[in-house]
């Protein structure tokens, strides 16, 4: 039964809740939040909520958005998800300038550094590329066709990332694998040359990002995983440079101690503009953890934990801009059962110290200190104040969803036999 379901891409209902995502314009001109099928953008330059315009054949998203992403130049915003649509938005006109229909649900997206291509991965492990032509002046383009460029055999791809020099595209999956592929001259012809695999995680890999360092033009890759480690990699050779176990530190910070088996799976990470800090969202942590990367020694270490007092905020997604020292976070979930307000989200921001001076402390901004203030929160959250119980329920639902989506099921011998006997493809023969 399981196999057949994998085949059709029909997953049990319980895993269909989707976390909220946040993305920050590289120059912090706008901030986008996706929760459920809702894409919300706040324009920080104009200090006003953005109304998106979508004249494509299938306007707006009709199911949970699973990934949002700005291009490096900030001219594009891409959104994609369970409705098998990838939408490319111009950040000038906020018009949908491209809408791509996919065969399968989309699990992650990336924009090439030159902004010419959008890559996205589907839930069967295939990575597709489509030209984004951001130089075409704000015209609504006809439906685009994407070409497959590479594949992880039947695995969910959790993260896609271009290296800072644009030479490699890196893809991570739930089979503990990170693949580094050479970006070919014409990506539409496929990316056949695998540079290396980064192997060492012992659970699904959930997130990737690059440390930008002048000494490493290819960049140093950081990955976070369900195995509660963050790892540092050389993407040219695939060698593991350092492993940072965060479990013990997270344990100390889990204050309520109610959980029987706290799970310190890493849900998201993002490298910060100072070039050496890495912010983590951890499934058990009401706040964020900050790591330090020393690019010359090629080491990772835990710097500090920033707890969010007074509310249950376990971030589901993190974002920073390249220019400002501000780390944005969101927590939220789509289709939360038992609550009438279904697509709520909570947004907070932490201001990070410029350099990594030991005495400089990260500061959690109050709601009235956040750029855009109440107006921004109203737009991105869907409401200004949200009860704590909503987030407690959301945190639980999300944990379950992540588990059933990404963690491999271990069946007992009898259960396995039963599953084999009841497989759809076998039934046909009997």
């Amino acid at each position, binding site marked *: 039964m*399981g*196999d057949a379901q*994998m085949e059709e891409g029909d997953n049990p209902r319980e895993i269909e809740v989707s976390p909220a995502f946040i993305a920050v314009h590289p120059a912090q001109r706008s901030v986008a939040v996706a929760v459920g099928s809702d894409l919300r953008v706040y324009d920080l330059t104009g200090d006003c909520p953005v109304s998106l315009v979508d004249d494509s054949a299938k306007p707006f998203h009709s199911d949970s958005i699973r990934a949002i992403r700005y291009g490096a130049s900030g001219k594009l915003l891409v959104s994609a998800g369970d409705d098998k649509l990838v939408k490319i938005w111009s950040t000038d006109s906020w018009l949908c300038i491209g809408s791509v229909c996919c065969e399968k649900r989309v699990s992650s997206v990336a924009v090439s550094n030159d902004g010419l291509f959008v890559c996205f991965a589907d839930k069967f492990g295939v990575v597709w590329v489509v030209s984004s032509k951001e130089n075409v002046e704000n015209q609504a383009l006809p439906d685009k066709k994407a070409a497959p460029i590479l*594949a992880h*055999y039947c695995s969910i791809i959790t993260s896609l990332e271009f290296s800072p020099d644009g030479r490699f595209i890196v893809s991570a999956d739930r089979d503990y694998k990170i693949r580094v592929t050479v970006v070919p001259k014409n990506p539409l012809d*496929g990316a*056949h*040359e695998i540079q290396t695999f980064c*192997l060492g995680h012992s659970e699904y890999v959930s997130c990737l990002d690059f440390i930008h360092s002048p000494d490493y033009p290819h960049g140093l890759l950081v990955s976070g995983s369900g195995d509660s480690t963050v790892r540092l990699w050389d993407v040219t050779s695939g060698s593991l440079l350092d492993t940072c176990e965060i479990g013990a530190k997270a344990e100390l910070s889990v204050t309520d101690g109610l959980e029987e088996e706290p799970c310190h799976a890493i849900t998201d990470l993002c490298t910060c503009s100072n070039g050496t800090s890495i912010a983590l969202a951890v499934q058990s942590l009401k706040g964020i953890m900050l790591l330090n990367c020393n690019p010359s020694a090629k080491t990772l270490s835990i710097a500090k934990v920033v707890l969010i007092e007074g509310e249950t905020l376990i971030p589901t997604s993190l974002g920073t801009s390249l220019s400002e020292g501000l780390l944005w976070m969101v927590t939220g979930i789509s289709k939360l059962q038992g609550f009438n307000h279904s697509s709520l989200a909570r947004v907070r921001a932490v201001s990070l110290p410029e350099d990594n001076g030991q005495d400089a402390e990260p500061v959690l901004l109050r709601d009235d200190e956040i750029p855009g203030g109440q107006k921004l929160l109203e737009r991105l959250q869907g409401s200004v104040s949200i009860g704590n119980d909503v987030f407690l329920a959301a945190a639980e639902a999300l944990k379950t969803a992540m588990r059933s989506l990404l963690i491999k099921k271990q069946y007992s011998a009898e259960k396995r036999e039963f599953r084999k006997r009841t497989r759809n*493809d076998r039934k046909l023969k009997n």
Partner: protein
Amino acid sequence: MIEKETTSTFNKSTGLPRKRFYRARAHSNPLSDSHFPVPLSPSQFDYSLHYPQLFPASSDDDNPKRIQFADIGCGFGGLLVALSTLFPDKLMIGMEIRDKVTEYVKERISALRTTNPSQYQNISVVRTNSMKYIPNYFEKGQLMKMFFLFPDPHFKEKNHRRRVISPHLLDEYAYTLAVGGIIYTITDVEELGEWMKGCLENHPMFEALTEEELENDPVVKLLTSATEEGQKVARNGGQTFQAIYRRIAPSL
């Protein structure tokens, strides 16, 4: 290793395990999740377990030798057995997804090692899904030969992505093979033969061997004769279709 087995599963005259005790379902679904251990990376593959005589667990001097031939979907292991004595100084592994079939090959090798001391030390088998885990077993450019003999055809269009030769999987095989390494494919299903040839022909990192090279390669003759499936096809007078390609450097 075999002493503890009851003699009944072994053929008394040949000392080899009897196949009928190791029959299994004809086809496996390569998409189903794994229930077997997989090394986290090639450096964690335990050579001393697979080639104990060549890699004594206690010895200090690390044998730098690595596996160079891989038989993917090796079935009952006939090819490994034939190659073992033809290339005694190469390490080879069979990869097979069916549990019982893998057990059979293990017993077969272990019996051969017992009856022919100092021979068959260079072959072994692992139970794994080759479509998912090849990078966990081999480093970049480690292999010199990869074999895909009589793979499951998966006729239906919808199941083509289950085929072991596909455009995307060839990227992984190209990664695993050294430049100059050779991929051997053969089938008795014409449509699959054309498919495999087409995939290889269109891939920028493979080129076909010439007629002359095929003539001179002693391995080519084994493709039709060495494996159980090959022998069955030959017995029934079936036609075979082969595609044999060399890994080349991609042009820039």
